[in-house]
């Protein structure tokens, strides 16, 4: 692999290898980084995301016991002492065995110490359902993290963002949860420009411009939303698709500005609806008094556990067709008053 830091021409990488390139750059350029987690070092990660890093960076990259509290607590302690740990929690569903270390520990460090201490750790994890994945390996749980003040949260949806957001997370002086997409790791390839600047956190991206409705989404669901927008286009409707990328910090200005133009709002996510982050987006638009031509729409999984069978998963989780149908209805729905 070429020296990632000095290349300006885009390279085509899978989502997984884009994360790998970011980790490699961080380990190479920042001597304070260390990387650990279950199966991340010698095996190179169960999804291959961390491969070759152990070979290249030696003991700064190491495997751990199956002890998520020790992994996260260990990262916090090392961060307090000036390291910049990058840890992997293999599935977002597994964060719950050690949630305390994120909510009650990492999130409190800076505020409670009045900034005397800080905990610049990056927690990489991944989420979502894939055919056959069981109910304990399928949840989309970003809303839980996004409700915790003190934690930065992002969900890259493209190889470029997998690269940029990972670096931004590592560079951030606060704890950041990077929620990757298992479904995209090897299925999605795309151009990645490495750049020379170190990316910083925050900022939504308008993934597709449009005039008829604003569709807010994040993470792997972006691709569902884009496919639905394409279907709308064939019906003569132009959806503007906003990829939030970061739930914290939240770039609600991009959303508000877009909705003010289109007059319609839909939020699409894989997570279940009640208490999902879609509610936050809908609320921000409402409380800012942005006039809407029709009620806002949230598309997500109904409030269900996730079944393993592909036929059931397919019916539970939004797909391009069901999203397109909902968007179409939203575009043609009557005025509010």
């Amino acid at each position: 692999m070429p020296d990632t830091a000095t290349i300006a021409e885009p390279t085509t990488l899978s989502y997984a290898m884009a994360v790998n390139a970011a980790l490699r750059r961080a380990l190479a350029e920042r001597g304070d980084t260390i990387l650990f987690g279950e199966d991340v070092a010698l095996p190179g990660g169960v999804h291959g995301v961390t491969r070759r890093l152990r070979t290249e960076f030696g003991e700064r990259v190491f495997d751990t016991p199956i002890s998520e509290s020790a992994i996260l607590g260990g990262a916090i302690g090392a961060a307090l002492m000036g390291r910049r740990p990058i840890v992997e929690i293999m599935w977002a569903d597994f964060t719950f065995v050690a949630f305390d270390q994120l909510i009650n520990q990492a999130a409190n460090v800076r505020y409670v110490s009045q900034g005397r201490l800080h905990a610049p750790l990056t927690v990489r994890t991944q989420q979502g359902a894939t055919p056959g994945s069981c109910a304990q390996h399928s949840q989309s749980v970003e809303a839980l993290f996004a409700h915790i003040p003190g934690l930065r949260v992002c969900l890259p949806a493209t190889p470029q963002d997998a690269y940029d957001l990972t670096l931004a997370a590592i560079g951030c002086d606060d704890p950041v949860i990077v929620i990757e997409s298992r479904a995209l790791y090897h299925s999605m390839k795309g151009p990645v420009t490495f750049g020379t600047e170190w990316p910083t956190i925050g900022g939504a991206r308008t993934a597709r411009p449009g005039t008829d409705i604003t569709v807010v989404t994040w993470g792997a669901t972006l691709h569902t939303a884009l496919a639905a927008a394409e279907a709308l286009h064939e019906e003569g409707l132009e959806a503007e698709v906003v990829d939030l990328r970061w739930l914290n910090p939240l770039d609600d200005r991009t959303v508000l500005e877009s909705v003010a133009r289109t007059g319609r709002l839909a939020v699409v996510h894989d997570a279940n609806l009640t208490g999902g982050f879609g509610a936050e987006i809908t609320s921000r638009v409402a409380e800012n008094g942005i006039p809407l031509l029709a009620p806002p729409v949230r598309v997500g999984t109904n409030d269900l556990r996730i079944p393993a069978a592909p036929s059931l998963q397919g019916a539970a989780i939004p797909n391009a067709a069901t999203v397109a149908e909902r968007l179409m209805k939203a575009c043609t729905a009557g005025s509010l008053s």
Partner: protein
Amino acid sequence: MHESDLNQYLNELTSMWRIRHFEEHVAQLRADNLIAGSVHLCNGQEAIYVGTCAALDLRRDAVFPTYRGHGWAIACGTPLDALFAELLGRAGGVNGGRGGSAYLSAPDHGLYGENSIVGAGAPIAAGAALAATFDGSGRITVAAFGEGAMNQGSVHEALNFAAVYQLPVLFIVENNRYSELTPIASMVRSDRLYSRASGYGMRGVRIDGNDIDTVRETAIQAAAHTRSGGGPVLIEAMTQRLVGHYFGDAQLYRPDGEVEQAREDEPIARLTRLLAARGVAQAELDAIRDAAHQEVAEAAKRALAAPLADPSTIEEHMYA
């Protein structure tokens, strides 16, 4: 050899073959993309399931394995059709396809559920044992998990919880040396995991988990001990998997020759050698293997012909 002993061995051989063939069929179905997603096979660990279940009364006892639980399910007597159907996402699966390979249950057969969160089944099994101290059932429970799970907080809490109330639970550590792709030796400083039991004031033993006699006799003793109020027992059963952690694992982390050696030491080969040495005809041994194979193949065929889980049912059973 007493006739009853011989029969027992032959039954155990049948059971172990049933599991082995089941797993081999699953591997093929997964390779053919008829089963979707991760499957964790237990080839080579069969003696633990068959030997332990010999000590259980599955009308009242309850077993809590992990994602690597097909062998437990079969040893508990779960019908093969419904198991295949579950893995194949069919309506007739033990959970109608909702559980899948890694999170299925069949409480009618004492299988109170696989668990895909490492270590999480241990406190639940302890709780099921706790219930027995109130309901007069005489139930004991089994929490089964891998050696890697011994480093998970919930297992620690479960061990202490069971010890303090002297709950009727057996903790079976299936020590197959690896946790996913990482050897246990790199995750603990002392690899005598059974020795942790004494710190909780609990019995702990390490046994040869590939020897059906040892597993069965240890389990019978331990079950009697815990059922009679003697408190929990931790059994570290040494074994090896003959296959990868999950289907598709290239096993680059295993040293040369390890799997070959494991094939010599695996429980079916060992029991087969023992029976041959004691005079059981090769033809009889082959017939047992082949009958199990046929039973499994037919079950798979029936499951494949059954209808997929019906998407219109997904809203059912969310709440009482």
